[in-house]
């Protein structure tokens, strides 16, 4: 009896301890196991479920894919903490929220992400704004240094293009024009293989164009480009354009106004807006020959027009790249007003500027008006003289050629009449 009683105690103890062991053992098993328990079902490629909208969603997870991922050593339940739908509950297995919270481990990234535009759209209820897994993948996440990773520098543009080059998606979400898929790839940045979307746009915390904290906000663009091109940004910041851009003038150009955005080309590429054959045709005139801007800033469109009529401009328009274009005299990134002593077109520097192409240009060479418009009402003396020469010559041409034509026409008429008789 004693034994029986003793045995009963032992059994009691066993009954009490064993479930604890079992439960803990099972939990530990799930937690520390090779996930074979989950993969037992989820390896099945045909495993599917239907979501609320009736769309079919695959529930299959590739085991080798997961194993080789950066999270390969984690347990399923480390991320899927609360799987609580009916199916898992029936089996008595742990249930969890189907949404995985990356922030549990990746706190910093999540903090950045919460400031970013993608999270804002999710908060506003946009279903298809990017979650972590949209860019990083789900079970097969690889370290971004791994060339096969979705976030490897060689693949980021493909990852972003999944949405941003999709015409339907872009239209639905009013993201402006869809990016042509190859535009960035063929750009001077894309070709390096080292620069990708995130270099300019940021990654987790990427912000909207209109967010003043954004890397691509108008006045921040020089800073963003300066990350790699610091000397040029320094030059630009002091230029007439840079100063205005920094003050938030929306009409003043920044880097992208002249160089373009995603498809930035090297300046030797004929398609580049800063190619020497286009710079004076489209790039500078886009503002300096524009009615609105010239009115707003009280600048005239005369320089463009008079340049086109000058020897430099005429030869340039015919394709002469030795002929001076806007940048030859005004500079490139460090364009300054003529009143600035550092300006290439300041009166003290003009002789040197002209001398770049005209060796031996004298002091007198650099005097006088360059952007000259022939007009008898002109401001400069030369303009008036040329205007008068023009009028006199046109009258002369009309009189002489008109007279000669009249005389010869009569001669022809008379001879023709004589022949007809």
């Amino acid at each position: 009896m004693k034994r029986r009683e003793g045995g009963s105690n032992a059994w009691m103890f066993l009954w009490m301890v064993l479930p604890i062991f079992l439960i803990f053992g099972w939990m530990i098993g799930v937690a520390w196991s090779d996930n074979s328990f989950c993969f037992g079902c989820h390896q099945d490629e045909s495993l599917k479920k239907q979501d609320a909208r009736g769309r079919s969603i695959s529930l299959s997870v590739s085991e080798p894919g997961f194993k080789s991922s950066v999270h390969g050593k984690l347990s399923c339940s480390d991320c899927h903490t609360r799987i609580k739908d009916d199916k898992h509950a029936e089996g008595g297995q742990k249930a969890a929220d189907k949404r995985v919270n990356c922030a549990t481990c990746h706190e910093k990234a999540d903090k950045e992400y919460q400031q970013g535009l993608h999270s804002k759209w999710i908060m506003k209820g946009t279903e298809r704004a990017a979650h972590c897994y949209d860019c990083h993948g789900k079970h097969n996440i690889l370290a971004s240094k791994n060339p096969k990773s979705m976030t490897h520098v060689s693949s980021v543009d493909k990852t972003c293009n999944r949405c941003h080059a999709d015409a339907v998606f872009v239209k639905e979400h009013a993201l402006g024009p869809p990016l042509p898929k190859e535009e960035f790839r063929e750009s001077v940045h894309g070709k390096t293989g080292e620069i990708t979307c995130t270099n300019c746009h940021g990654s987790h915390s990427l912000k909207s164009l209109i967010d003043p904290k954004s890397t691509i906000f108008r006045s921040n663009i020089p800073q963003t480009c300066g990350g790699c091109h610091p000397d040029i940004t320094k030059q630009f910041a002091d230029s007439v354009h840079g100063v205005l851009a920094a003050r938030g003038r929306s009409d003043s150009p920044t880097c992208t106004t002249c160089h373009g955005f995603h498809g930035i080309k090297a300046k030797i590429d004929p398609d580049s807006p800063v190619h020497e054959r286009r710079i004076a045709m489209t790039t500078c005139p886009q503002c300096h020959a524009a009615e609105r801007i010239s009115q707003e800033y009280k600048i005239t469109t005369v320089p463009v027009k008079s340049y086109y009529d000058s020897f430099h401009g005429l030869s340039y328009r015919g394709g002469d790249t030795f002929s001076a274009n806007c940048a030859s005299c005004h500079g490139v990134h460090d364009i300054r007003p003529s009143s600035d002593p550092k300006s290439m077109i300041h009166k003290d520097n003009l002789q040197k500027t002209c001398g770049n192409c005209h060796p031996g240009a004298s002091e007198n060479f650099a005097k006088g008006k360059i952007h000259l418009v022939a007009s008898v009402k002109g401001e400069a003396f030369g303009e008036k003289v040329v205007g008068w020469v023009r009028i006199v010559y046109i009258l002369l041409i009309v009189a002489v050629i008109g007279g000669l034509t009249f005389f010869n026409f009569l001669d022809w008429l008379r001879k023709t009449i004589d022949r007809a008789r």
Partner: protein
Amino acid sequence: MTKKYLRMTLNERMQHLNLAVNFTLLVITGFALSFSTAFWVTPIADLPMGMTFRGFLHRLCGVATVFLGGYHLLYLAFTERGRKIVKDMIPGLKDAIDLWETLKNNLFINRPAKELKMPRFNFREKLEYLGLIWGTIVMTVTGFILWFKTEWLQFFPMWTWDVARAIHFYEAVLATLTIIVWHFYSVIFNPDIYPMSWAWITGNLTEHEMKEEHGLELEMIKAEKGKLVEFDKAAAVGGGRVYPVHREKEEKNSSAGGFLGTVRDLNEKIKNWRGM
């Protein structure tokens, strides 16, 4: 066989051809700059370095034309035929009357039409030749200013260069239109001449052409017929064609006065030097 009258010697035809080629190239390469985006410039603009080549060719032809002008001046000064050209080219009252009467003929004011006898160079030709000389001088001066801007602008203000540029352009328009309207009418589109006066290739005019355009000259030639030299004695460069040569001058050797005569006499003496 119809009678032929020498109009242009081979030398003169070469000068004409030279000028025609250079002038055409100058017109094309010049207006290719002024209208550098025009469709007809694309063959030049699309060439690699096309515009640079255009500028080079323009200057080359300009220099060639200046040299041709210099040669022509020498020809006028140092050949008998050249001096005759100068003499015959001087415009006079007769030319104004010819022009006026031509106009009246053509307008049926003169009824019946007056028959005009015009000299070796009629008013059309004088007008054109003198215009050509004027144009060549203007284009040469302004052209060299444009070319040697660095040198020019050491002494003159920028606006003079701009003026030179304007003149160079408008004078070019004037010259080109004159050639088209005036010269091409005279030698191509004139119903009496059409399809073309062959004088610039063959050097000859027919008797009919002479009668129409140079009646006075024809009369003089016929009056001087006795004085005409034989075929083989006529100017070698002229290809032995018939044209008037004043025999007295042939005979009166070394009679030219002034500086030229002195030089020529000296030359003769040196050539015939047989020692003291």
